[in-house]
């Protein structure tokens, strides 16, 4: 896989998630960051650091991206969310505008 097709997301604890670019674009915020016409650091490097999102949440978010792509292409499965991370996940979702 070419580097331009992937994006590196880094959690508060420093965990790096490398996901498909098109999965990352599910988030409007990420989309803006990665495609903004201005040349921000993120746009140029293809990596985004989230100092306020913890590793488990970011992991769940990444899972959601892929699930969402599947869902959009017609494969309707359930996306399971553990109750204890719900609040944090919602805040992250608001932030990422997904």
């Amino acid at each position, binding site marked *: 896989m070419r580097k331009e097709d992937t994006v590196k997301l880094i959690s508060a604890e420093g965990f790096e998630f490398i996901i498909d670019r098109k999965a990352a674009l599910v988030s409007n915020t990420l989309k*803006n*960051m990665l495609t*903004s016409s*201005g040349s*921000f*650091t993120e*746009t140029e490097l293809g990596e*985004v*650091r989230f100092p306020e999102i913890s590793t488990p949440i970011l992991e769940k978010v990444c899972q959601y991206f892929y699930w969402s792509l599947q869902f959009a292409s017609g494969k309707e499965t359930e996306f399971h969310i553990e109750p204890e991370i719900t609040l944090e996940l919602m805040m992250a979702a608001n932030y990422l505008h997904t």
Partner: protein
Amino acid sequence: MSRPKEKIFKIEPFKHKVEMDPRYPERTWKLLEDAIHQIYNHNASNLSFEELYRSAYNMVLHKYGDKLYNGLVNTMTEHLREIGRLIEAAQGGLFLEELNSKWMEHNKALQMIRDILMYMDRTYVANFNKTPVHELGLNLWRDNIVRSLKIRDRLLDTLLDLVHRERTGEVINRGLMRNITKMLMDLGSAVYQEEFERPFLDAAADFYKLESQQFIETSDCADYLKKAERRLNEEIERVSHYLDAKSESKITAVVEKEMIFNHMKLLVEMENSGLVSMLTDDKYNDLARMYTLFRRVSTGLATIRDVMSAHLRETGRQLVMDPERQKDPVEFVQRLLDEKDKYDKIINSSFNNDKTFQNALNSAFEYFINLNVRSPEFISLFVDDKLRKGLKGVSEEDVETVLDKVMMLFRYLQEKDVFEKYYKQHLAKRLLSGRTVSDDAERSLIVKLKTECGYQFTSKLEGMFTDMKTSRDTMQGFNTGGDSNEGPALAVQVLTTGSWPTQSGARCNLPTEILSICDKFKAYYLSTHTGRRLTWQTNMGTADLKATFANGQKHELNVSTYQMCILMLFNQADSLSYKDVEQATDIPSLDLKRSLQSLACVKGKNLLRKEPMSKDISEEDVFTFNDRFASKFYKVKISTVVAQKESEPEKVETRQKVEEDRKPQIEAAIVRILKARRVLDHNNIVSEVTKQLQARFLPNPVVIKKRIESLIEREFLERDKVDRKLYRYLA
């Protein structure tokens, strides 16, 4: 505060992060403000989108949206003022370029700012009904740059100046123009209209007003139209290159008004180059140009149409009233047809086959054809000429087109019954002399007349054809039955009285040789058709004579019955005076003179010699047989004066006959109408009768009145006893 007993659930706000660094908003805003400066300075690559987004996110989340928003407005305004100063400072031609490049930068910066403040756009702006960041940026640009005191007028002047320079032939930077107008459109169509379009249209109006004035003074109509067309296309092209598409209709309207509408009359009536001369010179391209240009303005086509119609009427009137033209009916009709062809072609190729133009053409033709009372006669003569000889060697389709064209002229005639009268006469002559070239053509014309005017119109004409056919059969029977070897051969056409334009009382003393065989035929015919009466129409017949001349030369002479009678006299005598001939033959003097004239006065074909020699026959003349007659051909045709246009007394006579024929038709129409209506007043009768008879002729109201009186006398109608204007039908 007293409360009801039952416990109310209360959701406490999430207290977790509330106690915050009081300097937090200040600090965060500082960060963002710095970032905005960096963005305007093209230093964004040092910035972390995530950090900025998070900062804005947090500010909005912690209810500092106001501060963020207002800060943005202030910072951006400050920047734009700075930019404005830079643009103002730009010299001359660089002004637009500077404006354009700053606009591009602003757009880009605005995009980035919007991206990092997206969260604010989503929540704060939506909740507090603020202007979204992007629009805010445009509004600020509009207010601080485009509408700033020092830029506003300069911008407009520069733009208008560029357009003007392009109009006068200079090449300008269209891409730059395009960007600037695009900028104005991006700021909203109201801005575009106010800041540019309206003054642009005013300037165009001034420009074209002046230019059209110059053009019209210096160029002729065709050139002017070419210039106008070019200008129009230029403006359309201009719009497509660098203006809003919506401006096209507005700017073309301006050009149309200034260049065309305001000068329309002048152009059309321009001497030596206006519409009239275009029409006469067949300038199809110029005419087409005029049509397409004038069609754009409201009364344009009507103007062309009126002038064309007036011109057509005038030339047509001259054509039909020209006494020179009336000498040759065939030429006369041919000219009419040519004129029609010409205008058909113009309308077809230049005027887009416009229906209203065709109507104008038709009404003009109808107008002037009927100006000349002899038109029906001439048209019939034209047909006669064509069917006699004109169509020889012409293909069937061409025959059809000629006939169709004639029918078209026929349609314009108001006095169709006059045409019928003449047509009948000419057809009779054609049929009896066996001169018709093509039976098919004759019949096809009859069919056309029938579809045009109905069965009644052609029934007699068709009767003539039937008579010809039955006569052929009769003759066959007659010739096979008798011994035809002896004496002269006879060909008889039995004509039904009424169908043919026969003149009764045509008399002449036939030579005895002929009389005997005529009697034989009479007996034969009456034996098969009892109860009929046969009269000889000697004025219509022809005869073939075999003659031997002085040097033994033999010729076969094809002559009319009258001429035959005259020539037969010279078997007994060599010299006869006019009186002798008249007495012996008993031919009416007018016909006699005409026959003698063709026998004695036509050079090269003079079978008789006349004393004294002169062109005309007088009662004292003496005729001798010319035995030195010579001709290259064995068969010699002595032409009588053929169907020519009528002489003045004949014309009056035909006219009277027509009037006479109209009487019963008018009466029949009156009776038909009153039979249906029972009671009707005078004016209505007149209009109804006119309507009914329109297809054949235009009845004169005075004549209608006379007919009504005659009908009252004969007790078909009566006047109402109370209201004298009413007529009542008496069953």
